[in-house]
């Protein structure tokens, strides 16, 4: 097997030709390299090379206090970083046995579902682009921008959000944030309906995606797939439903599943998940109304960074601020695995703590890394153009793949 890119003078009449697909190919949406052996346009075999943007997050995390690890998680799946942030906060809270007030849970649910929609907008939009339909992508992109404006209103940043804190949120959602969420809930559904009308029965799109890269349940489970692409094969595994975190058990939603795991099914599953996310956000907004409106964090002064104005005017807050920033807080000897349903699969945090100022070991179970594994084997025998669409529909994010 060929690991490095090579140039060959093969005669296409008698020998296979080698194609370096990537690492910076415009159709791969990220730094992915696949060295393919081609017989005409058909792929004979392929080898994936990954690690181009490996940044050693697990090693860095062993040298950082807990609250400084949140920005690292931003850079995993950067299309839906709030889910990663919340997953990390919840992992630490689980380790510390901190119970969140219901209102915080619901606020988190809103943000995580918005992030899921933003991620699916990009993935399904790009899948359209790759099949030759740019319109849907541009239509939907406007609404991803609306989601990013909601993030901005809540935490000040857009892509690498660093949203929330261990123990809650850094500040309450203001009325503008709520107004923007409500506006999104009104403005997005008609667009999503239009998007579905544009694609779901579109002859060109269906011909390009149906029965392309179909995966059986057994293969998907054997490759430890998770997320929408696993559900598209017909397995109803969703961490939100199986092991509810952040009060997901309070919500009424469905886990959409597909039938044969092809690209078309993955597309449909993601669209349906966006509808379910909208449902969840609506319910969460209704539930938040019933909770006291001034609660946005748990009462855990030893772990929750106090607001700046208190740090300057209040002795206790200053002490806690100092202890948290310097990593002097007491933490238990513990070993915890916590999983959240990221936009592209089960995002797990395996944290081993020895009571020090930083984790003894932190491992990210990154769905992109595990989902991408089947890409080269499943591309065998596929047309090159189908392999491109297959890559888009896997929703592999380079930052998460390489960590």
């Amino acid at each position: 097997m060929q690991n490095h890119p090579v140039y060959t003078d093969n005669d296409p009449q008698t020998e296979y030709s080698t194609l370096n697909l990537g690492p910076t190919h415009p159709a791969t949406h990220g730094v992915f390299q696949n060295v393919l052996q081609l017989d005409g346009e058909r792929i004979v075999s392929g080898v994936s090379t990954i690690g181009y943007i490996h940044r050693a997050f697990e090693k860095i995390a062993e040298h950082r206090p807990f609250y400084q690890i949140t920005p690292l998680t931003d850079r995993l799946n950067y299309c839906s970083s709030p889910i990663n942030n919340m997953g990390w906060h919840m992992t630490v809270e689980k380790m510390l046995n901190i119970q969140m007030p219901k209102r915080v849970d619901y606020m988190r649910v809103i943000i995580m579902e918005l992030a899921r929609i933003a991620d699916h907008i990009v993935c399904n939009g790009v899948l359209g682009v790759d099949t030759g339909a740019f319109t849907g992508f541009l239509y939907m992109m406007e609404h991803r921008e609306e989601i990013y404006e909601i993030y901005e209103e809540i935490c000040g940043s857009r892509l690498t959000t660093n949203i929330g804190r261990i123990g809650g949120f850094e500040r309450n959602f203001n009325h503008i944030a709520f107004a923007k969420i409500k506006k999104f809930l009104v403005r997005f559904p008609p667009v999503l309906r239009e998007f579905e009308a544009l694609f779901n029965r579109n002859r060109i799109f269906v011909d390009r995606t149906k029965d392309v890269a179909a995966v059986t349940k057994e293969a998907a489970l054997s490759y430890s797939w998770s997320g929408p692409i696993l559900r598209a094969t017909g397995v109803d595994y969703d961490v939100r439903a199986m092991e509810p975190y952040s009060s997901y058990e309070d919500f009424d939603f469905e886990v959409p599943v597909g039938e044969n795991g092809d690209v078309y099914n993955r597309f449909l599953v993601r669209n349906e998940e966006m509808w379910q996310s909208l449902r969840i956000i609506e319910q969460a907004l209704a539930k938040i109304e019933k909770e006291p409106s001034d609660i946005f964090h748990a009462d855990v002064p030893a772990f929750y960074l106090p607001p700046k104005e208190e740090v300057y005017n209040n002795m206790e807050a200053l002490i806690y601020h100092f202890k948290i920033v310097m990593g002097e807080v007491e933490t238990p000897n513990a070993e915890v695995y916590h999983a959240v349903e990221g936009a592209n699969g089960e995002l797990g945090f395996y944290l081993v703590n020895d009571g020090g100022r930083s984790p003894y070991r932190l491992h990210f179970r990154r769905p992109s890394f595990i989902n991408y594994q089947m890409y080269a084997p499943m591309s065998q025998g596929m047309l090159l153009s189908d392999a491109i669409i297959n890559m888009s529909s896997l929703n592999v994010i380079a930052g998460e793949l390489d960590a």
Partner: protein
Amino acid sequence: MGKIPNEELLQKLTDKFAGQVTHTGADYGLLTVETSKELIYDVLAYLKTDAALQFIYLTDITAIHYPEQEKQIGVIYHLHSLTTNTRIRLKVFLTLEDLHIPTASTLWDGANWMERETYDFYGVIFDGHPDLRRILNVDDMTVFPMRKEFPLEDPNRIDKKDYFFGR
């Protein structure tokens, strides 16, 4: 089917592998057992194929380094039984001199890259693995960077030493 209670799961394992599987804790409700590298493949295969357990989903394989222990490197498996919604964590500890352990990639295709990652960062050699190469780091790297002795940054740098902070 509901979640398998930890006691029942542990009982099944100890019955099957008389005394070879030791219980090391159940932090936050996740049963953790330790076994030996001779037995790990059988334990994994048993957990996967037993009709009542059905741990068919391999969540993760990773490793950990404890420099002060005799057996320094621990290989950690997380399995998930989707039908009963039960998770289990398995550990095998290895000495630095003998970092061989049987591969799980014959049981799960997904173990392939997880084991490559573990090899890449800790140097654990998975016997029988079809393609044990580095995966995230460059091919000509000679160290295993997640081991504790490998420094994160320039070891000569002193401005971040603990004594500056009264520790």
